[in-house]
């Protein structure tokens, strides 16, 4: 147990998906780390859907893994099903998704924390941040202990002034009836942080015994073994299915009849909810012409019959929820085990953060996860690992690691938050990424392992394995570029077999593989490599060559962006002194304080002429300094 007055390098508040990654990263980077949580029983708790991954989110899990994070490894050990989504589309949007055993997921994560040498895990509620002269020094707990930390990472999830809403019923609460953090929320206001009120919700859970799955469509996992982590070698083969059913006209009529009891419409809810996660009542009002909505039943784990009713998020009164459930095919006799609810909570306006996730207002204080206005376990984990890395680097007096929009979805996520802010709980979507083709599920290791190694989260052994893979890819691509196949009878006959057109002249393998119907395995038949090629190497060779033209297009756009990104905005810039920029631009620039012209260009309300003037001003000030010195 940490004693009052004890000093740590890094203190992490909250052990959700952000807090766990932050604490593990800091500890693994050699910092003495304290992780404080309200309850040791809710470590890495999934208060909403029992799944990890999917488009953009699954990409993020891979990125967290490539940086040396825990989420990928943990879900690989604890899932009940995995599926690769979008396999009919291009490789950039392949997306892995796992159904989790929620309890197992928590237990495994807790084990990882407990076994981490530099990490102290302790149950306690933080009531106050210790801040002196704008610098965070540590925390004060409810039990009165003062604990010092060189840096502090705050990951409060939906606990800050949390309020649960079910019909007319409202009460102060964290998720799933956990105790909310009230004092800490007040403390953040005292420190001058601007907060917003967000809302999210969760559907009811039902007992599988009372569901007739014969009336539903089965949704099994993939036969092929899958894993998020590049390190996983053991695969779970025993999988559980999910089930698909639909709402119907009766459901909709029933909801319409009870709309006046929905807090959404009675005005009980003040928080801004996410558009991508509307409640069932919201769906029926906004999309009145849709005569049915999908409902997925997802097991909450292996050792329980509790099922999550995806698609039926609601804050209608309890008895209405039960009645709605019973209008659905296969659920005529269903028993609701937990009631769905909406939850409101405080989030800080994320433009108050630097891209390192350190707050501008209080030095050495970092925030990550839902407190920054996001939603989703993966989004939280992504910020968690970055905040952990940067909190540790601050202790080590090193520059922060900032991923840009062409390096990772994590970069897109954080840049969006700190540059544009968000007026609803923010969820990652592939369409938020400009360079989606570069940010693929398959190449997260190629994009980020170097960085993970450099900060100290990737072991020597793993890094050696990675560099061998990278060299093998380069070597094989080189071979395919140099090797030509001639239109020999064997070659022509093989091409005919594949359904490809015959060759007129000798052609490089690298060109041949660009044909849509030609796969890497065909190349191996036409001209085998000397040494066997691993399947993950083959995958890279095929994707990188087949889509070379499009990848080049994206890289050209990245070059343009980089030029703007590389123009730094010095710290001495005073936007109030710049003559000629618009009022709106001045206000936004003062708020965001972008680090580069590139970041400035993404702020809404800052137009090209403002940027020109800013550039001129920087140049002018720079020359002043030179001549003055």
């Amino acid at each position, binding site marked *: 147990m940490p004693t009052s007055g004890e000093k740590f390098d890094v203190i992490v508040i909250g052990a959700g998906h952000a807090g766990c990654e932050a604490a593990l990263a800091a500890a693994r980077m050699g910092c003495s780390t304290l992780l404080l949580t309200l309850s040791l029983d809710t470590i890495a708790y999934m208060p*909403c*859907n029992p799944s990890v991954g999917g*488009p*953009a989110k699954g990409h993020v899990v891979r990125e967290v893994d490539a940086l040396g994070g825990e989420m990928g490894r943990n879900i690989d050990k604890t899932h009940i099903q995995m599926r690769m*989504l*979008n396999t009919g*589309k*291009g*490789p*950039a*949007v392949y*997306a892995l998704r796992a159904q989790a055993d929620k309890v197992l997921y928590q237990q495994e994560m807790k084990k990882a924390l407990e076994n981490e040498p530099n990490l102290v895990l302790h149950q306690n509620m933080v009531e106050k941040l210790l801040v002196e002269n704008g610098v965070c020094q540590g925390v004060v707990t409810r039990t009165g202990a003062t604990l010092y930390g060189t840096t502090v990472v705050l990951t409060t999830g939906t606990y800050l002034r949390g309020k649960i809403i079910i019909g007319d019923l409202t009460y102060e609460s964290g998720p799933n009836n956990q105790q909310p953090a009230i004092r800490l929320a007040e403390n953040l206001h005292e420190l001058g942080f601007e907060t917003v009120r967000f809302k999210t919700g969760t*559907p009811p859970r039902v007992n599988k015994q009372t569901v007739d799955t014969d009336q539903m469509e089965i949704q099994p996992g993939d036969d092929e073994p899958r894993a998020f982590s590049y390190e996983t070698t053991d695969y779970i083969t025993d999988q559980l299915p999910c089930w698909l059913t639909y709402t119907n006209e009766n459901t909709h009529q029933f909801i319409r009849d009870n709309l006046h009891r929905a807090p959404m419409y009675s005005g009980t809810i003040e928080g801004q909810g*996410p*558009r*991508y*996660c*509307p*409640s069932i009542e919201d*769906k029926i009002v*906004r*999309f009145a012409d*849709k005569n049915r*909505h*999908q409902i*997925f039943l997802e097991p909450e784990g292996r050792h329980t019959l509790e099922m999550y009713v*995806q*698609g039926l*998020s609601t804050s209608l009164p309890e008895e209405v929820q039960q009645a709605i459930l019973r209008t659905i095919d296969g659920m005529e006799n269903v028993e609701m085990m937990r009631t769905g609810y909406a939850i409101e909570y405080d989030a800080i306006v994320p433009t108050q953060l630097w891209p390192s996730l350190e707050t501008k207002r209080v030095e050495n204080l970092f925030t990550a996860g839902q407190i920054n206005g996001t939603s989703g376990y993966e989004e939280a984990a992504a910020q968690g690992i970055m905040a952990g890395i940067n909190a540790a680097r601050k202790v080590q007096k090193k520059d922060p690691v900032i991923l840009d929009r062409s390096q990772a979805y994590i970069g897109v996520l954080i840049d969006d938050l700190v540059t544009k802010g968000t007026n609803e709980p923010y969820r990652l*979507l*592939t*369409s*938020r990424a*400009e360079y*989606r*083709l570069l940010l693929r599920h398959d190449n997260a290791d190629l994009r980020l392992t170097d960085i993970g190694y450099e900060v100290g989260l990737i072991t020597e052994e793993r890094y050696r394995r990675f560099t061998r893979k990278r060299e093998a890819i380069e070597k094989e691509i080189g071979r395919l570029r140099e090797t030509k196949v001639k239109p020999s009878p064997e070659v022509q006959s093989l091409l005919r077999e594949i359904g490809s057109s015959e060759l007129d002249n000798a052609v490089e393998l690298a060109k041949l593989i660009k044909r*849509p119907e030609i796969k890497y395995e065909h190349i191996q038949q036409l001209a085998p490599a000397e040494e066997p090629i691993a399947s993950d190497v083959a995958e890279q060779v095929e994707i990188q060559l087949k*889509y070379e033209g*499009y990848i080049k*297009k*994206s890289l050209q756009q990245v070059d343009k962006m980089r*030029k703007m990104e590389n123009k730094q905005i010095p710290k001495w810039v005073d936007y109030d002194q710049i*003559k*000629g920029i618009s009022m709106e631009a001045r206000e936004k620039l003062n708020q965001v304080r972008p680090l580069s012209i590139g970041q400035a260009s993404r702020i*809404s309300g800052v137009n*090209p*002429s403002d940027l*020109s*003037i800013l*550039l*001129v*001003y920087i*140049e*002018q000030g720079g*020359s*002043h300094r030179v001549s003055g010195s």
Partner: protein
Amino acid sequence: MDTDTIAAISTPLGEAGIAVIRMSGPEAIRLADRIYQGKVRLSEVESHTVQYGHIVDPDTKERVDEVLVTVMRAPRTFTREDVVEISCHGGMIPVQNVLEAVFAAGARPAEPGEFTKRAFLNGRIDLSQAEAVIDFIRSKTDRAAQVAMHQAQGRLSQLIQSLRQDILETLAHLAVNVDYPEYDAEQLTAQVILEKSQKIEQEIDQLLNTARQGKIYREGIATVIIGRPNVGKSSLLNALAHENKAIVTEIPGTTRDVIEEYVNVRGIPLRLVDTAGIRETEDVVEKIGVERSHRALEEADLVLMVLNYAEPLSEDDRKLLQVASQHTTIVVVNKTDLEPGFDLEEVKQEIGDLPVVRMSIKKEEGLNRLEEEIAQLFMEGKAPSADATYVSNARHISLLKQSKQHIRDAIEGVHADVPLDMIEIDLKNAWQSLGEIIGDAVKEDLIDQIFSQFCLGK
């Protein structure tokens, strides 16, 4: 610093003897070479020298204008980058044409004050001028904003917006297919993308076509009057000019002096070319010869070929008719008040289907019919309507062409079986290029569209 090459007209707009188009950037000389024809390639000439040559369309290689080109290599230039200055003929027409060619070659339209900005950032202008630079950028921008505002309310903006909305809905649909693979939205197929892309391409083509019509409005229809001496060319010119209040413009050039007169025929501006020749000598054929008049005709949009009805068709008449029959020509048979010297059928044999108008300029007969014919030829008889959309700005044309190229890439992608989520890259580029025309390329639109078009969530 910046690696793209910018271009803009750097002389004041309006009628002037010559105009200068300035290009600046690391690619300036290479890009200029793509549209320049002269004795030596610009990349091979010495710095700070002037070359004589022609600007040609980079695709068709058609000559656009006769020019003098000054090549100045970095760093001894205004911007401290490589600079090429093209001196072309003044007036809106040649300048816009040359500018279009420069953009087509790959230069980007300069932002307001960008040359000055580059000069400053590259250390060419000293500190005391910095304030002035800021004011300069501000004022230019305000003016540009006014212009943009004006256009934003116009029909062009509406058309572009509706085109963008079409693309946006497709993008949103593709995004939903990708981000919500299990959602029961219909999966977009390659066939649907192909059809949508082709439709969008057609609409961009239509807009580009209006650019050609817009050009007619901006530049007028280049009209040449030909005929033997004393057939009434001068009278025709005077009649057209008198009736329509000609505006005479003198255009001294580097190698030629041309006089043009603008007349407005039923809302269509005719630009009567080389009227000086007609007025002074009344004898274009003898002066420049049939061969050379043939070349003069090449540049004309409309040829008015005048015959004297009172005299038999001469050998010269027949030669000219043959030449004229290869162009957009109206044959004007003058002096129909006198005894006929030939049969109109003879003319028809020479020229086929070309329209023939009988006139007596002296008696003021037939001018109306001639004007009708002209209107018929260029506006299909329709009077131009005040609210029609014309794309007339070189920057708009260049962005429309870019959009079209992105759409072409998308269509080729579909044909090559490229996954749809990659084709989306091209569609998004098209959407952004179109957005630049109306000064609007905000990405949040897409996210908004996704959630208003589809009912998603857990």
